[in-house]
């Protein structure tokens, strides 16, 4: 179940699988903590806010649209919870600045996650056998068709297909191994 996407987990929770939420908590708590910490500048308070945000997210999870990104929803709740916390504490910091900062942080973290994933895939591609790496790079990154690749390497079309399929299988193995 830990391999499931966020959206799949949310779907399961909406169908009554309460314990699937534990995976989401484990998956996001640290990222949320550093995100919230940059708003409240207090580790203890950040921990409290993360707890409240996660619990708040659970309470409204039945309204979450599983076709949209769950992380954005979660970070928005965390941002709002952090702002409410600061309001309660009557901080003198301008809330507009905080909201702006939080929104930047949110995008930053989303980009970071995306960049991390891209980086992992690129690294894995570099580990592939030479021929598979070249075929995959040409097909997926340079947008070349099967015919163009077959002409380039002077190999039959079916060989390109085979290389691509084996390359993807190898890539999956590398990524799965890294995950473990």
């Amino acid at each position, binding site marked *: 179940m830990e391999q499931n996407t966020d959206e799949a987990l949310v779907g399961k929770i909406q169908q009554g699988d309460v*314990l699937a939420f534990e995976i989401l908590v484990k998956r996001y*708590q640290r990222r949320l903590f550093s995100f919230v910490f940059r708003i409240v500048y207090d580790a203890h308070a950040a921990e409290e806010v993360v707890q409240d945000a996660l*619990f708040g997210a659970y309470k409204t999870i039945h309204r979450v649209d599983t076709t949209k990104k769950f992380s954005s929803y979660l970070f928005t709740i965390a941002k709002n919870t952090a702002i409410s916390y600061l309001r309660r504490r009557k901080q003198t910091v301008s809330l507009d600045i905080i909201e702006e900062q939080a929104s930047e942080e949110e995008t930053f973290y989303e980009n970071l996650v995306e960049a991390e994933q891209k980086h992992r895939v690129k690294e894995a591609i570099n580990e592939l056998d030479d021929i598979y790496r070249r075929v995959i790079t040409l097909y997926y990154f340079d947008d070349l068709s099967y015919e163009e690749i077959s002409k380039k390497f002077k190999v039959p079309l079916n060989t390109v297909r085979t290389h691509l399929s084996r390359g993807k299988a190898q890539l999956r193995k590398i990524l799965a191994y890294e995950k473990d």
Partner: protein
Amino acid sequence: MKKIDVTKSVMNQVVGFEKRRSFWWIGKFLFILFVLGALGIWVFWIAATEILQRQTLELLTLFTQDREIIAQFWQDTIMVFFEELPQRKLAVSFLALLGVVLFVLLTRKKFMIVWKKIQQLAKYGRNTENT
């Protein structure tokens, strides 16, 4: 940066919340089911008693007679039979029992979800006890 682990505290909150919500829902479900069911059965009971007291069902023994008698009297008998039935009471009882069926059909999906949640909460409770 400090590393945190709020999994247990969040899950405890979630489980507590879900317990209250699920049991409240089950309570409401059973209450509505009980009220509608009891109303239906109670009114039907009153209607049935009335029918037995008036011996309305005995009118139907006409249909055990000879064909000629049935042919002559069946229309009158049926009319009297329906007139003697406590129609309002039977209608109320029918509507209440129909309500039970509709209520069960409409809430069946939600009931399955809540039931699954309760099982999960029990599983969480067992796992917590074991650790």
